[in-house]
């Protein structure tokens, strides 16, 4: 095989092979524009009518030295003509822009997968930085895969030579060259990318020209050059998606938009306070840019101040929201108790990351569930919800606002690094189609006491400034009616019971637990929550295709649990709970329902693959 793809000759026109779905990963140095390539390809694929899910994987360092393994940035996309549930177990194709990207990513590739390799970066210095002893093409280490080495750098420079850019800028277009080639492989149109380049670089016409030239050249290379074995054109049919207007959305955007829409439905101003932390900061950034919607964002001095300000805002009659990730959520536990005992609505977003302690800040995990449900001094119940996918986060955010304001209680929303960074096509809803749930602030002084409860056991919410309703709340135990400080033993029991009953009662205001797939009784239920949705769903459907009796149940409402959940679970012989932690939901199910649920646990900072779950299901059913 020639080291230099340019030596290849024109290929005979061949039928494109049709595929159901395919997983492509781009990987390169942080400076190689990998994320950009990924998101351009995503748009192209989406516009072509495929379903998809993407996942970017950023390096942990801010800006690592060029060429190092820890500076590698990657972007994976799974797309197809069927419904896509995950960003893909293992790539079919890896586009690697340098030796470090090859080194850190090739191991994830499918057996026999294709590696498109920019050998223009192959030199001893880069081998060394990547930790290779020599040229990996020559040491026999890549035999599990099909390797397609091309001097992308050289091709790119050739392509851009008339666009008037210098060599450095020219070389930076190589991601577009690669994108052009991949566009050709999967029969995607380059036009939308060209449009995007033109608008993005409208002020730098040479750069635009160079990028477009590179893109076209890459595409033409596919058309014209002779390809090695197995590198050929593919095609994918449109997926059967519900008709309507789509966009791609990340979990971050989805949460931000959901909160704004939720506030609107509740008739409240949105007050968001947070302290930066990876990966939660993204929501702060998103909302900070939406001041035109009346959103107030506040970057507090720390997480305690952030939740404190949100509680203060809630007391003042706004929708108080705070967000963080593990270490920051831990810091909020004391103040959460105050919101619980003063019975103020509050939303706490937890974008979970790998722990304990600082852990692996850029990696995903589901290990804050115990903290969310149990992590407070005293008996301090609240509502816990979880989002299963980027798009789902939008509805979960609205549900959080609804429950917080209707029940006068904090709600913790669990998301994770995966959901927050991943993107998927989203059927954009009409905001008008959501039922509003306006907050009825108390204004009538007649018979007012701050802790007299309604039928849902919620207390009245009063905006300071309301005439005749001046009152005091606080963290000490309160008299059941008047809200005055009370140390009375019977009263404390009554208030403790009421706080518990209020949250337990939320089970009546949420839907019964549905079964995602499969029967409502049977040999095995796979129960999940959060971002394991995709791999569980696909794994269950794979096994079901073989005629096996397995069902998928996925929790959005984790605390309180849906009122029929216990009955539902008791209808299964076995219950398997895949979680990205050492077993947290599984313990709650066992505790609540005395069902012999078992955990399937993965704590690697990365999502389950479909095959991992599939294997576990099969072994349960064998």
């Amino acid at each position, binding site marked *: 095989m020639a080291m230099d793809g340019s030596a290849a000759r024109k290929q005979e026109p061949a039928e494109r092979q049709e595929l159901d779905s395919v997983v492509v990963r781009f990987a390169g140095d942080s400076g190689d524009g990998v994320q950009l390539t990924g998101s351009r390809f995503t748009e192209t694929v989406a516009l072509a009518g495929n379903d998809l899910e993407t996942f970017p994987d950023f390096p942990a360092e801010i800006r690592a030295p060029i060429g190092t393994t820890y500076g590698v940035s990657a972007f994976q996309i799974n797309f197809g003509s069927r419904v896509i549930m995950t960003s893909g177990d293992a790539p079919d194709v890896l586009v690697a822009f340098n030796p470090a990207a090859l080194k850190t990513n090739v191991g994830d590739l499918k057996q026999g997968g294709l590696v498109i390799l920019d050998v223009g970066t192959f030199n001893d210095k880069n081998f060394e930085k990547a930790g290779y002893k020599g040229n990996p093409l020559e040491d026999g280490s890549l035999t599990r895969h099909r390797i397609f080495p091309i001097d992308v750098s050289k091709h790119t420079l050739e392509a851009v030579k008339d666009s008037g850019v210098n060599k450095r800028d020219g070389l930076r277009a190589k991601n577009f060259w690669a994108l052009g080639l991949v566009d050709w492989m999967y029969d995607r149109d380059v036009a939308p990318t060209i449009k995007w380049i033109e608008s993005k670089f409208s002020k730098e016409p040479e750069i635009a020209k160079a990028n477009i030239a590179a893109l076209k050249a890459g595409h033409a290379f596919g058309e014209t050059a002779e390809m090695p074995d197995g590198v050929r054109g593919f095609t994918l049919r449109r997926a059967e998606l519900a008709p309507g207007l789509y966009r*791609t959305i990340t979990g971050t955007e989805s949460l931000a938009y959901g909160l704004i829409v939720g506030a609107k439905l509740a008739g409240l101003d949105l*007050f968001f306070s947070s302290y930066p932390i990876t990966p939660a900061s993204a929501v702060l950034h998103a909302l900070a840019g939406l001041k035109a919607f009346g959103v107030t964002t506040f970057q507090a001095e720390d997480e305690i101040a952030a939740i404190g300000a949100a*509680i203060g805002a809630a007391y003042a009659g706004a929708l108080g929201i705070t967000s963080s990730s593990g270490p920051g959520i831990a810091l909020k536990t004391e103040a959460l108790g105050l919101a619980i005992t003063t019975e103020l609505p509050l939303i706490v977003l937890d974008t979970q990351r790998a722990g304990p302690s600082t852990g692996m800040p850029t990696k995903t995990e589901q290990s804050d569930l115990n903290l969310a449900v149990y992590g407070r001094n005293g008996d301090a119940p609240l509502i816990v919800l979880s989002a299963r996918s980027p798009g789902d986060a939008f509805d979960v955010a609205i549900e959080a606002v609804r429950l917080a304001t209707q029940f006068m209680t904090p709600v913790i929303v669990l998301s994770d690094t995966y959901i927050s960074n991943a993107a998927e096509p989203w059927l954009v809803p009409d905001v008008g189609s959501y039922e509003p749930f306006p907050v009825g602030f108390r204004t009538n002084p007649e018979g007012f006491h701050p802790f007299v409860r309604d039928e849902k056991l919620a207390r009245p919410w009063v905006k300071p400034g309301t005439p005749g309703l001046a009152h*005091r709340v*606080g963290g000490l135990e309160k008299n059941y009616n008047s809200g005055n400080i009370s140390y009375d033993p019977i009263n404390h029991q009554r208030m403790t019971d009421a706080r518990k009953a209020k949250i337990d009662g939320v089970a009546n205001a949420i839907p019964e637990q549905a079964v995602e797939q499969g029967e409502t009784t049977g040999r095995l239920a796979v129960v999940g929550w959060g971002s394991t949705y995709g791999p569980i769903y696909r794994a269950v459907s794979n096994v079901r295709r073989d005629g096996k009796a397995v069902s998928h149940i996925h929790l959005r409402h984790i605390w309180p649990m849906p009122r029929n959940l216990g009955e539902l679970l008791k209808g299964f012989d076995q219950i398997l709970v895949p979680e990205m932690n050492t077993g947290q939901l599984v313990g709650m199910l066992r505790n609540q329902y005395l069902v012999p649920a078992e955990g399937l646990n993965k704590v690697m900072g990365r999502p389950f693959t479909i095959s991992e779950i599939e294997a576990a299901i099969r072994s349960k059913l064998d």
Partner: protein
Amino acid sequence: MNDTVSPRALTPDSFESDQEIRWCPGCGDYAIIKSVRKALADIGTDPDQVVFVSGIGCASRFPYYMATYGFHTIHGRAPAIATGVKLANPALDVWVVGGDGDMLSIGGNHTLHAIRRNIDLNILLFNNEIYGLTKGQYSPTSRVGTRSPSTPMGSVDYPVSALVFALGAGAHFIARTIDTLQKHVPDVLKRAHAHKGASFVEIIQNCIVYNDGVFDDFTAKDVAADRQLHLEHGKPLRFGKTKEKGLRFDPKSMKLEVVTLGENGVSEADLVVHDETNRTLGTMLAAMEPPDFPAALGVIYCSPAESYDHAVKAQIAAARSKAPAADLNALLRRGHTWTVDRPQA
């Protein structure tokens, strides 16, 4: 719990809630609450527009006794919570009350940042140099050598000065007064209220149970005149029973010194004239400690600047006026979208 008061005829009693006060008999907090009620009546704000936010401690019980909106929060976090109240509704008149432990020990950071941001809160620190509510441990303002249950051999760490700290945090308004000064406290509070931005007031407060008399060296009747310097903007710094003493500035050592008028040819013209807007002077005045110097009382430093809440709201207003038709459906459809048609049947 609801208190309906006509805003027209406000008296101190208009601000008295129905809750029985539970401070120890003789506690300095009684005098302070009286003065706060008087100040509010004089200011004339509708009690329904006022919010008191406090932390935890004896001082922090304050909101319960005020017929206004009130939030008795958790230890040390009142400035942060009050920040949320004010940002959510800048029209409210927000007061923060806490003890020296609450605001300078556990809550030091929130105090620092509320001051730094210059958010329009009236922050009242009741300094009794002790932890009252938890039964008498020493606090960050306790003097070296304070014997307490946690320091039976005497404390060894240097105290922080509340006002010097506040200036270090970038305060635009600092003042000091004493619980028992029934006219002075309301006057200072009215100045604090009038200042838009964070106003930080240290109120010297006697804890009769755990730290009785610790301020006697400048609050006791017999020494008050000699140990208290009552500041007035534009007036020379004079004190003493017959105002016979004053403060002169030595530019060589860059220090203030106590002088007696008439002695060694010192005349009033030699004295420093109080300038509230002078930060260097403010820092020196705030740091003065009896017995060598009188304690400075009144408004020590006042130099207004735009308040944080104002600037935050101005940005939102600007963003709104730039995009007046901000529409949620449009927001969701920002960026690239595509349409999937009805499946071809």
